[in-house]
C-alpha cells in the first residue's frame, strides 16, 4: 500500500476506534450499573491513540530511514569499479539514474549494470512496502486490542489521555529550542569546514571580498578573497541610512499619535502606517529598483552629483520606509506606558505639552525606545530582498552612501543561488556569513529584549 493510503487508513481506523469505544464504554456503564471513572469519550480517545500512534510511528520511521536503506541495497549490486573513487556527487547521479530507471522514466540508453541495480531497487521497494503495510497494520490492531482489553469502569482513561496530551504540548514547546539548535549547528558546522579552508583571521579582518575561485590551478587572476570587512561596512552603511530615515519619522509619528492625535485620527492613521510593515520586502525591493534608484540618479545628475544606480542611499531609504512602523509602534507602546502622573506633574510646573514630552515623557520612555530602535536595526541588518534587488554586488570598501556597496545578505544569496558545491569555499562562505549575521542580530536582539523587559518592569 502507498504510504498516504496507509496514513489515511490508520486515521480512519482510529476514528472508528474512538466512536465504537465511546459507545462501548457507555453501554458498559449502563449494563454493569457502575459509574465510569472518566467521561465515555476519554475511553474512545484512549483506544484511538493506541490505535493510531504505533502505526504512525512506524510510518515515520519508514519515511526517515527507507530511502537510505533502499539506495544502499541497490548500490551494493553495482560493480565495485563504478563506485571506487567516485565523488559523492557522482554517486548521487548514479542513485538518480537507478531511481529513474526503476520508475521507468529514464530516457536514453540504459547501462546494464544500472539496470541490475534498478531491478534490485524496485524489488527492495516492493518488499519494503509489503513489510511496512503488514507491520503498521499489525501494530495498530494490536494497540487497539490492547487498549480495548483494559477498558472497564475503574479504568482511569482520562489520566492516560491527559498524559499523552501533556507530552505532546511539551514536545511542541520544545520545537523552539530545536529550531535554535538546528540553526546554530547547521550554520556552525559548515562554517567550521569553511574556516578549515580559509583562515578565520583572513575572513574576519580581510579587506577584500571576491569569492571567485579559479577553476584550474594555472588560471590567472583571482584565487578568491574572503574578507568580510567590506560587506560589514556596506551592511552598516545601508542600515545607518535606513535608521536615519526611520528613527526621526517613526519617533515623531509615535509621539504625535500617542500625545496629540484625536482618537479618531489615531484609529485611522496608526493602521495605515502599520501597513508599511506588512508589505512584502520583495515589493520594496522592486520599488527601490524601479522608482527610487532612477529618481535619485536623475536628481543627482541635475545637481551635478554622481549617484550610482545601485547606491546605498536608495536601498537604505526604502529600507527606512519599511522599518518606520517597527520604530513607531514600539515607541508608541512605551510612550503610552509612561504614567499620566509624570505628565500631570510637568503640566503643574507650567510646562507646555511639547516641553513635557521632550523633557519628561521621552526621557522616561527612552530605554524602551532605544530597545525598539535596536530591534529595528537588527531587522535592517538582516533584511535581504531590498538589498538583493537594489544594492550592488561589488564589494567596495567605502562610507559614501552615493556609491554602490554590497551587504552580507546579498552575498549569501548570490553565493547560494545557482549551483551549490558543498566542498568549495565559495558555497561554504555563505554559511560563515550566515553565522556572522546570526551572531550580530542575536546580540542586538538580546540587548534590545533585555532593555525592553527591564523597562516594562519599571512601571508595572
Amino acid at each position, binding site marked *: 500500500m502507498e504510504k498516504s493510503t496507509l496514513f489515511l487508513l490508520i486515521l480512519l481506523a482510529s476514528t472508528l476506534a474512538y466512536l465504537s469505544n465511546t459507545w462501548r464504554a457507555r453501554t458498559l456503564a449502563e449494563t454493569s450499573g457502575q459509574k465510569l471513572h472518566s467521561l465515555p469519550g476519554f475511553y474512545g480517545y484512549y483506544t484511538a491513540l493506541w490505535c493510531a500512534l504505533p502505526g504512525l510511528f512506524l510510518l515515520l520511521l519508514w519515511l526517515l530511514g527507507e530511502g537510505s536503506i533502499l539506495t544502499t541495497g541497490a548500490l551494493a549490486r553495482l560493480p565495485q569499479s563504478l563506485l571506487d573513487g567516485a565523488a559523492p556527487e557522482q554517486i548521487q547521479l548514479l542513485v538518480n539514474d537507478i531511481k529513474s530507471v526503476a520508475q521507468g522514466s529514464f530516457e536514453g540508453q540504459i547501462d546494464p549494470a544500472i539496470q541490475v541495480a534498478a531491478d534490485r531497487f524496485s524489488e527492495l521497494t516492493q518488499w519494503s512496502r509489503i513489510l511496512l503495510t503488514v507491520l503498521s497494520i499489525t501494530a495498530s490492531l494490536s494497540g487497539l486490542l490492547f487498549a480495548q482489553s483494559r477498558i472497564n469502569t475503574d479504568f482511569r482513561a482520562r489520566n492516560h489521555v491527559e498524559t499523552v496530551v501533556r507530552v505532546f504540548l511539551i514536545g511542541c514547546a520544545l520545537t523552539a529550542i530545536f529550531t535554535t539548535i538546528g540553526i546554530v549547528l547547521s550554520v556552525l558546522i559548515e562554517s567550521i569546514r569553511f574556516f578549515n579552508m580559509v583562515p578565520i583571521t583572513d575572513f574576519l579582518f580581510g579587506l577584500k571580498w571576491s569569492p571567485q575561485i579559479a577553476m584550474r590551478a594555472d588560471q590567472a587572476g583571482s584565487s578568491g578573497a574572503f574578507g568580510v570587512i567590506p560587506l560589514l561596512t556596506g551592511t552598516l552603511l545601508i542600515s545607518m541610512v535606513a535608521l536615519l530615515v526611520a528613527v526621526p519619522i517613526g519617533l*515623531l509619528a509615535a509621539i504625535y499619535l500617542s500625545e496629540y492625535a484625536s482618537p479618531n485620527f489615531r484609529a485611522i492613521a496608526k493602521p*495605515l502606517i502599520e501597513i508599511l510593515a506588512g508589505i*512584502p520586502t520583495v515589493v520594496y525591493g522592486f520599488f527601490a529598483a524601479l522608482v527610487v534608484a532612477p529618481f535619485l540618479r536623475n536628481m543627482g545628475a541635475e545637481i551635478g552629483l554622481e549617484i550610482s544606480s545601485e547606491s546605498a542611499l536608495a536601498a537604505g531609504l526604502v529600507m527606512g520606509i519599511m522599518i518606520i512602523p517597527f520604530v513607531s509602534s514600539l515607541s508608541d507602546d512605551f510612550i503610552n506606558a509612561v504614567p499620566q502622573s509624570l505628565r500631570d506633574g510637568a503640566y503643574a510646573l507650567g510646562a507646555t505639552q511639547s516641553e513635557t514630552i521632550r523633557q519628561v515623557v521621552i526621557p522616561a520612555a527612552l530605554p524602551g525606545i532605544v530597545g525598539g530602535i535596536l530591534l529595528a536595526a537588527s531587522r535592517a541588518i538582516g533584511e535581504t*530582498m531590498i538589498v538583493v534587488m537594489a544594492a550592488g554586488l561589488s564589494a567596495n570598501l567605502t562610507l559614501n552612501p552615493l556609491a554602490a556597496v554590497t551587504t552580507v545578505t546579498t552575498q*549569501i544569496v548570490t553565493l547560494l543561488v545557482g549551483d551549490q558545491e558543498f566542498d568549495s569555499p565559495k558555497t561554504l562562505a555563505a554559511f560563515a556569513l550566515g553565522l556572522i549575521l546570526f551572531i550580530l*542580530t542575536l546580540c542586538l536582539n538580546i540587548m534590545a529584549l533585555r532593555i525592553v523587559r527591564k523597562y516594562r518592569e519599571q512601571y508595572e
Partner: protein
Amino acid sequence: MSDQSPRGHTLDIVMAGLSKRRNAEKRFRFFGLASIVLGLVFLLVLFISIIGNGYSAFTYSNVALDITFDPAVIDPEGQRNPAALAAADYDTLWKASLLKLFPEVTERQEKRALNAFMGFSADKRLKDMVIKDPGLMGTTKTVWLPVDDTVDLLFKGKLGNEEELNERNQHYQSWIKTLKDQDRIHSSFNREFFTNGDSREPEAAGIWGAVVGSAFTLLITIGLSLPIGIAAAIYLEEFAPRNRWTDLIEVNINNLAAVPSIVFGLLGLAVFINFFGLPRSSPLVGGLVLTLMTLPVIIIAGRSALKSVPPSVREAALGIGASPVQMVFDHVLPLALPGILTGAIIGTARALGESAPLLMIGMVAFIVDIPKTFTSAATVLPVQIYLWADSPERAFNERTSAAIMVLLAFLILMNGFAVYLRRRYERRW
C-alpha cells in the same frame, strides 16, 4: 529669597518667553504631523507607482487578421494527418495575411520587422483551431491573434522614451495606427496571465504556477504551524512551571521572532535538504522553513490571547471538577481562539510575502509546469516577482507590478479577515 526683586519680575521672564515657547510647541506638533503625513505619502507613492505600472498587464492586444487556411501550407500531403497538421508551419499563414494588409512593405528590414509583429503564441492558436476543426482548411476567416509583447507595449503607450523608439518600433507604431484606423486592433482581458505558468516569453508568462506553489507551501505552513504553535502557547501559558527551562524556551522564542529570515533559509538548506535529503525547490521544504519562521509569531500571539482570558473562567471550570487539561481545552481555548487565529492569519500573511529563505532552498528555479504535488519543483508568488523583476525584457516590468498587485490583494484579503475576526469576536473582560 525673592524679597528684594519686584513682584512682576518672574512673570516678565515667563511672559517674554511665552511666544517663543508657543511657537516651539506649534513647530513640534507640526513635525509630528508631518512625519505621519510623510509615512502615508510613502505608502501612497508605493501603491500608485505599482498600480500605475502594472494595471496594463491585465489586458493584452490582439489583431484581427483574415487568415486563409491554405492547404498547400498546412497540409501539403492532403492526408489530414493530425501529426502532420501539428508539425506544420502556421506562422506562414499570419505572415501572409499581414503582408496583404501592408502591401507597401517590401524592404528587407521592414519585412523582418513585420514578421516579428505577432506574438509567438499566434502560431499555436492557429494550430489548435485547425486541429479542432479540420473543416477550416481552404477557407478564409477573421481571427483575433495576440501581438508581440513589444507591439503590445507600444499599443498601450507604455514605450515613450526616444531610446525605446528605435527604427523598428517606429515601423510598428505606424502599422498600429493603420490597424487602429481599420478597427483591427484592440486590447482584451489577459486571461493567460492568470492561467499560465512562467515562461521566457513575456506574453505567455503567467502567475498561476506561482499561485499554486504558494498555496501548497502555505498549506504545509498552516497545517504544521497552527497546531504546534497553539500547543506550545498552551503549554507555556497554562502548564509550564516557572523555572529556568521555561525561561530558556521563552527567551528562545522571542529571539527566533527576530532572527533574519534568510538564516531560516540556511537552516532549511543544511537540515532539510542536505541532511534529510528532501527534494530541493519543493513546496514541502518551503512550507517547513516557513513553519519554523511563523511559529514564534503564532506562539507569541497565542500566549497573549490565552493571557487575556480571565482567571475566573479557569477557577470556575476547576471548581466544578474539570481537570486542568479539560479546563484548558473546553473553556479557555475556545474563548482565546479568535485571538489566536488573528495572530495566526497575520503570521501566515507574512509567510506568504516571504521570499528570502525560499531563495536558499532553490525555489528560484525557472519552472514552467504548474506544480501538482507537495514534492514537485515549484516557485511562489514573491519569488516569481523577484525573478520577473530581474528579467531584462521591458514587458516583464508591467507583469512584475501586476503580480505584486495580485500578491497585495491576497495579503489585504487575509489581513482584512484577521481584522474582521478581531472586531467580530473581540471581548472585553
